[in-house]
């Protein structure tokens, strides 16, 4: 797998889309890590006498209806979005992976688990997330759990199908024959070789989590005001669309750029880790 990764890497990085996405994500990650050094403004501090100012050298993206600096809010909002994205991906891999392993490796459990997952997957993920966020209330942590819950069935399915395709191969049988434990076989031999589809799915989940977090915040059940979130900013800015269009424009651009970049990275990763594409470059 690692050899495959490096043999494809040199070819993939030559792809313009992938390179642009990597550069953009690097810049965004740098900006959100060092936000306090990039902007002096507090994203929550009001200065309403200075409301609805258009972009200027002091306020690069203007100010909102409370006189808050939009540049600072966009960066802190993106920070929240990325935190949600990372957390959702980690939780989805853990829970989706565990359930997928159980279903794939232990065939007695397969039917039961998969029927439950089929049931969960019958609902669109965002509907489950909205319902859970509405029951538990908004807030970053509740959103992370709600989104993870709605994404994990798909991840579990992917892990299960990887395991099913690997577990009957000769080298697994050899491992069993020499007395390797189930845990060792699952972690050392099966999951290690299933990493490629998991990583690809994780990168798409990341982009989707950011988009869904924005949707939930837009609907008022996501990150609670006055904490900045890109979706929440767009929601609040609707009333000012005609008088101060910059309030809605910048968070909108940020969401598009982040989600597009992660999707492009996901595409690149899929190509990197796909042995069928090895000779296509």
């Amino acid at each position, binding site marked *: 797998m690692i050899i495959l990764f490096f043999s494809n890497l040199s070819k993939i990085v030559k792809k313009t889309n992938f390179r642009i996405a990597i550069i953009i994500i690097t810049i965004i990650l740098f900006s959100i890590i060092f936000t306090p050094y990039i902007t002096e403004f507090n994203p929550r501090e*009001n200065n*309403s006498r200075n409301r609805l100012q258009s972009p200027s050298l002091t306020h690069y993206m203007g100010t909102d209806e409370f006189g808050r600096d939009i540049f600072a809010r966009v960066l802190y909002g993106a920070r929240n979005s990325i935190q949600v994205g990372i957390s959702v991906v980690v939780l989805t891999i853990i829970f989706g992976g565990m359930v997928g392993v159980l279903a794939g490796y232990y065939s007695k459990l397969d039917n039961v688990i998969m029927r439950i997952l089929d049931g969960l997957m019958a609902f669109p993920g965002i509907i489950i997330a909205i319902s859970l966020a509405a029951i538990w209330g908004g807030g970053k942590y509740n959103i992370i759990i709600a989104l993870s819950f709605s994404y994990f069935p798909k991840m579990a399915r992917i892990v299960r199908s990887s395991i099913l395709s690997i577990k009957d191969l000769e080298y697994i049988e050899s491992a069993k024959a020499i007395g390797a434990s189930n845990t060792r076989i699952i972690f050392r031999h099966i999951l290690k070789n299933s990493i490629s589809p998991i990583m690809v799915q994780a990168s798409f989940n990341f982009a989707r989590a950011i988009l869904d977090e924005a949707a939930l915040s837009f609907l008022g059940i996501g990150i609670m005001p006055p904490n900045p979130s890109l979706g929440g900013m767009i929601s609040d800015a609707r009333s*000012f669309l005609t008088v101060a269009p910059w309030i809605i424009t910048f968070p909108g651009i940020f969401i598009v750029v982040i989600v597009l970049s992660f999707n492009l990275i996901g595409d690149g990763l899929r190509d990197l880790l796909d042995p069928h594409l090895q000779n296509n470059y």
Partner: protein
Amino acid sequence: MKKTLKVSIALLLILGLSLIIPPNHFTVIEAQENEERYGGTINIAQKMAVAHLDSDNSTDWLITSMMNHVYEGLFEFDENLEAQPHLAKNYEITDEGRKYIVELREGVLFHNGEEMTSDDVMASFNRWLEVNGAGSTVAPYFKEIERVSDYELNFIFEEPYAPFINILASPVSNQKFVVRHQDIIEEFGSDVITDHIGTGPYKYLDWIPDRNLRLERFEDYQPSPLEPSYYSGERIPYIENIIYEFITEPTVRVSGVQTGQFDFAEEVPTDQFEMFEANPDIEPVVIYPDQMAMFIMNNAQPPFDNKYARQAMVYALDLEELGYSMIGNPEFWRLEASLHEEGNPWYSSTAGEGIYNNYDPEKAEELLEKAGYDGTPLVIVSGQDDRVERQGAIAIQDQLEKIGVEVELQLFDRPTVVERRAEKEGWNIHLSTFSKIVPDPQIHQGWTGTNKWILNWDDEYSAQMDEIFARMMVETDYEARYEIVEEFYDFMWETVPYFNMLDFSRLNIVNSSVQNFQEAWQPFFWNIWFE
């Protein structure tokens, strides 16, 4: 000679015309014009949904605003804020202010075709005394209601009760007295009424919660003979159907009027005022500052069970900054400590002197320390659909955090807020808007007295406040009563059970094709027609 000839020809012409044109010609034209006004459906974008439609059972003024079309009061306010007889024909006060003799209009029909009589008024009034907020304020001083005939009643008090007629006509939610059919009262008692039979120009058709309320013209409506003036006088239901749609999103309300989906939108962003003025299809309607943004505290729970903590809130808030946050355009708000507007006989220019609009965060911190505030986060429960409440809550959180007070913001839809704020625990601060159109200071008793409204105020100070209102109620001399009112203001700003942060105007928009629309504080749709 020539002059005489001209005069003769003119006289002949007039005579000829008078023979050709029938004597009722102009009346006929007027009648035809009136006939042309009838018909059509008006679609209204209402800013929030309501929990139910029983105005006696709720403090939500939107209910009164909509159900004004279905129910009418014995008395209604005109545009000069004077109560005029409406379902009442006239009234007389005798026995030194203890007895109100009210004669009813004859021939007024309910939506089920039956005539309104004293029995309906008595049933409605008894329910009002029991259920309605203002009714329960009046009840302790009220003795009995006497039925004299089908069209005459006596309202008898234990002692003189000066503001009675004004309270009956009050446009404020949970105060106004409306006449319902006695069968409805018998069916529902004090429970929330879900079937509506009134005497108003429109009949209740159906209500889908969170979606819409539909009203239909009452063909047999019997209007008041008085000249129309806001809620009083003649109401003519030209429009056939009224549909209230509950649209919480202001941009949707605005775009609905722009595209013709709605004919009227309630409370749209004031920042867009100039844009509306420039649009020939839209008529902006500015309701002069008739609303107060109120800072409500839960007086039963720490820290606001201590008056110093309540005073601290006044010093902690930069009200001008709040004005920009809550309303925006400074043309639409003003700082005003008096609960009655300038020009009202109960206005006080000295109300809140020394404390109101005296932003002093250090003093606020001192007062909080004096009150023994332990740093427990304060919970603000406020509406997320109402812009003033939502923006205000966010701005207040920011300002309180600046003096080191941790704040938890809980924003809900309107029905949830109404439910939460009615609880004794679970909240510390609530933002609400009060109508400034209050005809008599006695009405404040319904909010300010011991355990009144949602304040949960019950201590030695609330008892003193009750005593002030008790004196206010029996005093009939204006000068002497005004002194008591000033005492009320002083005591209110000393103990601060709640306070008004600022006054603000509201901006509604109406389609230009709607004719004769009045800029009243609660929009009404009788006496209007489409071009």
